[in-house]
C-alpha cells in the first residue's frame, strides 16, 4: 500500500484538517464528532440539507457543503458509514427552524445509522425527513439483496435539492423534489483496478491484467460480474445501455449526463468516454442538456468510471443552473 498518509486510524481527521485550512471561507469543521458544516450555518428559515457516508469518496460529501448545496456532511471512517451522533450533531448545528432533510445512500450501514440519528433528532423536536437514494442499476433482484446502492445520482440530488432549499422551498417541497430526482436518476460503474482501504492495507480485490469489474459499487466491494476489458467503444455502452433500459430513457427525453471518474482514471480518458456516451445518447434521440464530467464520487485511487443519467424537466434544469458555492462545485457566484 502506497499512500500519502500517516496513521491509517487518523486518515479522516488528518484530511479534514487540511480541508478546513483549504476552505476556511466556506466550511466549519468539527472533530468530536466529525462534521463538516457550512460556515454560515444555521441559515434561518432554510431547510437544512444533511448527507454523509463513509470517507474515501471525496469530494463527496464534504466537498459539496456550502451555499446552494449541503448544510452539513458527516464523514465516517473510510468506507464506513458515520455514526448516529455525527448525524445528530449535524442536525443540531444546521437547524434553522425549517427542519432537516437527510440524504442517505442505500447501504445497510448508512440506513441504520441515519435511522437512529433521525430518532434522536426527532426526540429533540426537529422535523427530520429522510430520503434514501438507490440509483445503481447494477444491483439486480433487489428483493434478494440489500437493494440498489446509492451512487452517482447522489451528487445531482444534492445539487438540485440544495438549490431548492436555498430558494426557500419548505421541507415538504424539498422532500418531494428529492424523491422525484431519485425516481428519475440511474447509474452504473466499472472498475479497472481495485483500491486499498488504508486500515486494510491490501487491495479490496485483485483483477487480472485483462479483467474489469462491471457494476462496481463505490466501496471497493467487488462488482456483479468480472469481464474482459474492452475498448472504450465497448465499455461505455456496457454502462450506458443498462442505465437507459432501466428507467427507461427514451427518444425525446432531456437528460443530464454525469461522467464520473472513480478517482484513478484521468480526465483524458474520462472526456474520451464522455464523448462516446454523448454520441450514443444522440443516436437514441436523447438530448443531453446538461453535463458534469470529473471525479465527483470516487473510490479512493480506484481506476474506473461511472455514468449517471438524470431525466430533466424545466424546474430541474433551473435548479441545476442555480448558483452553487462549495469546494467542489462552484458557479453563479
Amino acid at each position, binding site marked *: 500500500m502506497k499512500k500519502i498518509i500517516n496513521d491509517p*486510524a487518523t486518515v479522516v481527521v488528518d484530511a479534514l484538517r487540511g480541508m478546513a485550512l483549504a476552505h476556511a471561507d466556506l466550511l466549519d469543521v468539527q472533530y468530536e*464528532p466529525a462534521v463538516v458544516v457550512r460556515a454560515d450555518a444555521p441559515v434561518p428559515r432554510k431547510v437544512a440539507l444533511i448527507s454523509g457516508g*463513509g470517507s474515501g469518496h471525496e469530494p463527496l460529501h464534504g466537498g459539496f457543503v456550502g451555499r446552494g448545496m449541503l448544510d452539513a456532511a458527516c464523514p*465516517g*471512517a*473510510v*468506507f*464506513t*458509514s*458515520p*455514526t*448516529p*451522533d455525527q448525524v445528530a450533531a449535524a442536525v443540531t448545528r444546521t437547524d434553522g427552524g425549517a427542519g432537516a432533510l437527510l440524504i442517505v445512500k442505500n*447501504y*445497510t*450501514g448508512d440506513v*441504520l*445509522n441515519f*435511522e*437512529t440519528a433521525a430518532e434522536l433528532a426527532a426526540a429533540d423536536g426537529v422535523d427530520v425527513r429522510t430520503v434514501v437514494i438507490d440509483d445503481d442499476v*447494477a*444491483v*439486480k*433482484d433487489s428483493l*434478494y*439483496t*440489500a437493494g440498489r*446502492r446509492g451512487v452517482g445520482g447522489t451528487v445531482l440530488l444534492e445539487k438540485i435539492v440544495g438549490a431548492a432549499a436555498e430558494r426557500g422551498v419548505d421541507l415538504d417541497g424539498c422532500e418531494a423534489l428529492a424523491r422525484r430526482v431519485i425516481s428519475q436518476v440511474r447509474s452504473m460503474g466499472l472498475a479497472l483496478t481495485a483500491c486499498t*482501504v488504508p*486500515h*486494510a492495507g*491490501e487491495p*479490496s*480485490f485483485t483483477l487480472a491484467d485483462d479483467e474489469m469489474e462491471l457494476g462496481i*459499487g463505490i*466501496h*471497493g*466491494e*467487488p*462488482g*456483479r460480474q468480472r469481464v474482459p476489458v474492452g475498448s472504450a467503444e465497448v465499455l461505455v455502452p456496457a454502462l450506458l445501455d443498462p442505465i437507459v433500459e432501466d428507467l427507461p430513457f427514451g427518444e425525446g427525453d432531456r437528460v443530464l449526463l454525469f461522467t464520473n471518474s472513480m478517482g484513478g482514471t484521468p480526465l483524458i480518458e474520462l472526456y474520451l468516454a464522455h464523448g462516446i456516451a454523448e454520441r450514443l445518447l444522440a443516436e437514441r434521440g436523447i438530448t443531453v442538456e446538461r453535463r458534469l464530467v470529473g471525479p465527483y464520487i470516487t473510490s479512493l485511487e480506484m481506476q474506473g468510471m461511472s455514468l449517471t443519467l438524470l431525466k430533466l424537466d424545466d424546474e430541474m434544469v433551473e435548479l441545476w443552473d442555480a448558483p452553487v458555492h462549495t469546494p467542489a462545485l462552484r458557479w453563479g457566484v
Partner: protein
Amino acid sequence: MDCTAESVADAMRAVAAVVVEHRDELIRLDREIGDGDHGENMARGFTALVSKLDGNVPSSPGGVLRLAATTLISTVGGAAGPLYGTAFLRAATSVGDVASMDGAVVAAALRAALEGVVARGKAELGDKTMVDALTPAVAAAESVAATGGGVAEVLEAAAEAAELGADSTVPLVARKGRASYLGERSAGHLDPGARSTSLLLRTFAGRAR
C-alpha cells in the same frame, strides 16, 4: 461464578483483546465479500469501550451492557455498529438492574439481543449474516438454561452453536448487507459478522468458566 458488573466489564475487556487480535482476519473476510472494514470497525468500537470502562465501571451488569451499546453505536459505524449496538441495548433492557446474572437471565438477554438485531436489520436465518450465528446460539442457550444450567454452561452452549452457525454461512448466498450485491459470488465465504458474533460468544464463555 458470580456474574457481576465487574465480571461483565472484564469480559468486555477480553472481547476487545480478541477482536483486536482477530482484526486482520475479520478485515480479510469482509474484503472477500464486503468492503474490508469489519475488523477495523469492531476493533475501534471495543477499544473505545475499554477506555470508557477504565476506572468507571457501571454499577450493574445491565449498566455495562448499556455502556457497550452506546459506545458501539457512536464509534463503530457501518452495519455492525447499529446492529451490535441494538443487540447490547436490548440485552441491557432485558437484564434490568439485577446485581448478578444467572443462566436464565443470560439466555433471556441473548434472546433480546437477537430480537433487536432482527428488528433493526430485518435479516432472516440463512441470509448469511450475524443472525445465522446468533439464532442457534440463543436456542442452545435457552435449552441449557431451561434445564437449570448456570451462566458458564449457557454461554458455552451458545458459543458452540454460534461457531457452527457461523460456519454454516460459508455455502450461503447473501441476501442482506453488502455481500448481497455479489449474488452467487458470495457463496463459499464465511460471513464476517457471523464470525465476530461467534468470537464474542466464545470469549464470554471463556470468561464465565
